[in-house]
């Protein structure tokens, strides 16, 4: 009998346990339903990831911006460009006026490829002098350029088969009637590491800076200290700058640490100016601190601020060109990307570290970062609630 009552007791215990479980389940569900932002996060983050991965991200990017310097006006030059276009990999959208201009277009990231067809190309080809076509490829991001170069090699043999018929047909058989010289610039060893490590600098700084300031205002509100602070004669701008400034120092230390590691551990060179890199990295740190601070003036709790930061971080990861080639994304995604500080910083950091880009090459990105920072700060000051209404 004692056995029976034992089982009885256990069943009752189990039922009670289930009841408590159910109570907790209902409570959690009710709380979840009230917490709109968490709910939105649960729906939108997977949706956003799906959409971005599905439509914006392309590991075999086509239509890459290509600059041309054509010094020969023969039909051969035109049909070579036409053949390049036909591969779908090249979007010949920029005309360089000189070799220096061609270099600048590539160093500033406006073009991934530069094609130079030298003077008398057509004449030399007919003569059988095997003229050269020079293709400069920005190899900082090997994924972006690899397939395009392969396609370029494929067309070499067939490109002039139509022109070289009739009297010129004897020139048609291989080897091809001209030399294709491909210059892989900036990362000739095609080491992914050289592209990823500077990019990591940007993503790490984005994340840590967001977290530093993202909680600063909400923390004061949650701890109740905001009421005291607001009852004192201090202005929102003063609060903002006072809260951001210490983290600029922290960010500076972090930057030194990451740069040191990139150089010592990963052997990433710093080809360009170190002071320029440091100055622009500080600007980027400031931009992210401002975004974090803005979130913290909008969020109602620390959790909300974290959720907003995450929302913001995701497109930064996916659309900035960190993980996937920027120029390989569809137009709309590139437009979105232009509004993200990380996009501009990646151009800056890869530009200076790998391509020895100068301030002039990067001025557009510097301007974008500065404007972004100012806009975030202005929004934060405007959004700052000076009363408890």
């Amino acid at each position, binding site marked *: 009998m004692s056995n029976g009552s034992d089982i009885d007791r256990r069943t009752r215990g189990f039922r009670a346990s289930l009841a408590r479980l159910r109570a907790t389940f209902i409570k959690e569900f009710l709380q979840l339903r009230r917490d709109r932002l968490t709910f939105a996060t649960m729906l939108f983050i997977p949706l956003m990831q799906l959409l971005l991965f599905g439509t914006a991200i392309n590991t075999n990017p086509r239509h890459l911006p290509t600059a041309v310097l054509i010094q020969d006006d023969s039909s051969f030059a035109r049909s070579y460009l036409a053949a390049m276009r036909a591969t779908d990999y090249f979007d010949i959208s920029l005309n360089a006026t000189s070799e220096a201009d061609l270099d600048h277009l590539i160093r500033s990231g406006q073009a991934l490829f530069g094609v130079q067809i030298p003077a008398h190309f057509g004449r030399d080809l007919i003569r059988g002098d095997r003229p050269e076509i020079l293709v400069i490829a920005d190899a900082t991001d090997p994924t972006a350029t690899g397939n395009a170069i392969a396609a370029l090699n494929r067309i070499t043999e067939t490109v002039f088969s139509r022109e070289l018929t009739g009297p010129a047909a004897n020139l048609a058989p291989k080897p091809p009637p001209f030399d294709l010289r491909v210059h892989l610039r900036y990362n000739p060893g095609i080491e992914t590491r050289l592209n990823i490590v500077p990019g990591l600098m940007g993503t790490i700084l984005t994340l840590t800076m967001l977290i530093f300031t993202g909680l600063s205002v909400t923390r004061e509100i949650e*701890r*109740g*200290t*905001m*009421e*005291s602070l*607001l*009852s*004192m*004669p*201090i202005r929102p701008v003063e609060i903002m700058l006072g809260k951001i400034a210490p983290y600029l120092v922290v960010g500076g230390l972090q930057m030194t640490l990451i740069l040191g590691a990139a150089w010592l551990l990963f052997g990433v060179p710093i080809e360009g100016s170190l002071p320029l890199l440091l100055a622009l990295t500080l600007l980027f740190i400031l931009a992210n601190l401002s975004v974090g601070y803005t979130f913290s003036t909008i969020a109602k709790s620390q959790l909300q601020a974290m959720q907003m930061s995450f929302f913001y971080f995701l497109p930064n990861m996916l659309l900035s060109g960190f993980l996937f080639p920027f120029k390989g994304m569809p137009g709309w995604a590139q437009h979105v990307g232009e509004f993200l500080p990380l996009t501009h910083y990646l151009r800056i950091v890869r530009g200076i570290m790998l391509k020895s880009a100068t301030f002039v090459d990067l001025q557009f990105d510097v301007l974008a970062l500065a404007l972004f920072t100012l806009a975030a700060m202005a929004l934060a000051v405007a959004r700052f609630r000076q*009363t*408890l*209404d």
Partner: protein
Amino acid sequence: MTAQASADPVSDIVIDVEGLTKSFGGPPVVKNLTMQVHKGLIYGFLGPNGSGKTTTLRMLCGLLTPDSGHGTCLGYDIRTQTTDIKRHVGYMTQRFSLYADLSIRENLEFVARIYNLDQPRKAAQDAIVRLGLERRADQLAGDLSGGWKQRLALGACILPQPELLLLDEPTAGVDPKARRDFWDEIHRLAHEGLTVLVSTHYMDEAERCHEITYIAYGEILAHGKVAEVVAEAHLSTYIVTGPQLAELAEELEKRDGVDMVAPFGVELHVSGRDGKKLEAATADLRAKGPQVWTRGEPTLEDVFIDLMSRVPDNSV
């Protein structure tokens, strides 16, 4: 009371507001509130939880904008001149709102710097001495006991030498000795010319105020000196002692003419707004015993409980 006696009716008014109304989306939590506070007085602000005391204090120091109504605080407009108000008003929040992760000294120096005092370190040190916090000066504010926290908060408030103190339930949850010290300090400050508006739940504290205002559900129900407020309530009260007071109270609650029954330790206070009706309603019980009935003076608390029972609870 000297300050009160010499009160000049116009220039001595520190707080002068009229028709303040505030709601947070729902029904107003402060309704059409009008009040004047004279310089150098300790002015008590009483009322049940949720009656709008904190909201009123926040409107006075520029932390909330009234929906309607207008007025001045230290002569500055409470809508447009909040920066000036903040410079000259010390506001002590209901919930401890200094930085728990800073030491006493660091908190005080922070305040001194915000107010742009000449020598913030010295100002903080002086405040530490005045508050008797020397031995704890480098302790984290968050680790202090309730009484010491309140003392620190008060110290931070008076550091920039304000002309008006707004104290929101400064002694809630503080032991009686600390409470007394706190009030002694407030009286000293008032004597030095500071005006103090303090909200509280404690009757003994109310009696230490020069004037009191009783507010419930956002409306002022009584106002004046303590004796005036008690007198104006026109309450008649019996004090009952003896056995079975709980049963007696239950019986009394049902009777017409008995407006309030409240146990006070071993006593029961039975009050009515109409003395005659109260006498009639309780005659049989007084004759029957076994409890002992004596005629007594209503206390301030009797008055407040009665005031509250007169207004319907529409706070929800």
